[in-house]
């Protein structure tokens, strides 16, 4: 990777973090409705993963999707506008926090029913296989999704049909408030891939470089026709499941321990230790992000509400 590319990944992680912090404030101000699931703490997973894709590769994820949207190239202002329900939002204000997508960026959502997007990911990969496309579908999901039937149906189908799909489990330790050990028969989610004869690995999801390398390697294998692969990225969400989570299921010390292992800090030390960047360059990026997010909030707040006729638009393509 060129220096610029390394710095861009730093920029992306800092941008996600800042967008999420601002979203949290906007939520507390009552400007964002519904649920708000923040990606803070997990930035390295999506950033490392998506840095390894080619433009034709598809990305599909669950409801914790703001960071993934940004990594796919959706401008922060369109993410924030969607959170504010504005017409300029990435889903025109009709999707909200959990339903962001941009087909032009090959980002296929933003899916809010746990695990339901896994069979759809199989279908995206089937479509590419059918059409002979040189494309890999990257499907992200949480540890909680590995307990629902959709996960098992989708993994089985992907193996039976040798589909070009990379399954990425973001194991952030909790399905809502239930710890992995309390919900899953196996604590390493990757073990579930064994039952479907799908090759798998486990990676430190707080380490961008580790995630990126795992992704580059597995995406290449899948592209060569080796069939599906499952990567489990071990990570942690610092904030509650959604806003207003009393977090009775974990201790503050546990959160603190993980925060000391912050993905942005790890990557920053990596860049400096490998003399890819000096601190002042990273400070500049942070300043740039600060300005960009300020402008994005301004854009979102000043954007128009959807027009009343939007209510009945897009129920059907025809009639």
């Amino acid at each position, binding site marked *: 990777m060129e220096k610029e590319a390394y710095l861009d990944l730093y920029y992306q992680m800092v941008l996600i973090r800042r967008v999420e912090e601002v979203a949290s404030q906007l939520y507390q101000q009552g400007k964002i409705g519904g649920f708000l699931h923040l990606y803070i703490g997990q930035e390295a997973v999506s950033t490392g993963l998506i840095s390894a894709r080619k433009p034709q590769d598809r990305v599909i994820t669950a409801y914790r999707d703001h960071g993934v949207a940004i990594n796919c190239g959706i401008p922060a202002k369109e993410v924030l506008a969607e959170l504010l329900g504005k017409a300029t939002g*990435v889903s025109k204000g009709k*999707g909200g926090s959990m339903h962001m997508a941009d087909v032009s960026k090959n980002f296929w959502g933003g899916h809010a029913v746990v695990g339901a997007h*896994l069979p759809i990911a199989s279908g995206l990969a089937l479509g590419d296989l059918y059409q002979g496309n040189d494309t890999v579908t990257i499907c992200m999901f949480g540890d909680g999704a590995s307990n629902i039937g959709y996960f098992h*149906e989708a993994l089985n189908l992907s193996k039976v049909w040798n589909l070009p799909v990379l399954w990425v489990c973001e194991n952030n330790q909790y399905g809502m408030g239930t710890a992995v050990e309390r919900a899953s028969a196996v604590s390493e989610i990757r073990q579930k891939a064994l039952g479907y004869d799908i090759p798998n690995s486990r990676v430190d999801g707080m380490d961008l470089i580790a995630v990126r390398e795992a992704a580059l390697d597995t995406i290449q294998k899948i592209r060569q026709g080796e069939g599906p692969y499952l990567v489990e990225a071990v990570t942690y969400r610092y904030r509650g499941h959604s806003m207003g989570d009393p977090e009775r299921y974990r201790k503050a010390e546990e959160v603190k321990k993980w925060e000391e292992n912050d993905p942005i800090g790890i990557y920053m030390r990596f860049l400096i230790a490998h003399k890819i960047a000096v601190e002042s360059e990273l400070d500049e990026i942070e300043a740039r992000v600060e300005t960009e997010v300020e402008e994005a909030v301004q854009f979102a707040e000043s954007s128009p509400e959807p027009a009343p006729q939007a209510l009945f638009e897009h129920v059907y393509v025809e009639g």
Partner: protein
Amino acid sequence: MARITMREAISQALWEEMETDPNVFILGEEVGVWGGTYAVTKGFYDHFGPERVRDTPISEAAIVGAAIGAALTGLRPVAELMTINFAFSAMDHIVNEAAKFHYMFGGQFVLPLVIRTVGGGGRQLGATHSQTPDAVFAHFPGLKVVAPGTPADAKGLLKSAIRSNDPILFIEHATLYQARDEVPEEEYTTPIGKAAVHRPGDDVTIVTYSKMLEISTKAADKLAQEGIQAEIIDLRSLRPLDMEPALNSFKKTNRAVIVEEGWRSYGVGSEVAARLYEEAFDYIDAPIRRVAQKEVPLPYNRTLEQMALPQVEDVIKAVKEVLHG
């Protein structure tokens, strides 16, 4: 015109669309090597090959989910669910995903998707394999629901469905596959969301669809012998629901009976009756009657099963009630 069965008509529609458009493919349980549980896709596997006639595991959520994904890539999948009773295992993907995507992502997602499935009772398959839950699926905006009652409509509607860019649930009736009728030999399609006058008459309006079109027609034949001319409206599509032919007919006859195979409560008849009351209140000469399945899980025993299902006599009785009070 050729006289062919419903099975042949559906099979022809699939075959012709697959021949015309390489993006059309079939996936489902036993659609390939077996030739289709109801033999609709017999011969397809050998002709079109395993890539286009894909046998799936018994995984309804994966079948519909994969069809949704493939449709998003621009293909035109025809997913087959062996029976509508198994559609409940894919309910989430039908109503929470397929029906929502175009709207929820601001018009970006387009799903040229057909889900073919088979409903209906009358074959002694017991409560879990005999349901007619069409109204359940018709409840959801974003999904289109089509249920043909004749071979000609089945062929024309299925061809329209495959060419449509919206997700469509195409409900066939298990006891209509052998029904034989005239089907045009030239190329044609039948519009989705358009009801039709199936049989003209001046005395009473019968609104129905699918298998109950057959029952209602038999009833109308008997009523005709008594000098009662029933006009039969075939809904053909449950969503979008085209009320125009039913309203026009009702404004002429001022009396209506709605016949459906599903349960009465919250059913197709409830919807149609409400629309007639709302939109043609001034034309009503008698309370509208609904003929529907008895409110029980369908029993196995043949006599009990037939007691629960709407019969020709039930339709005749309801018609006489609206005519004579």
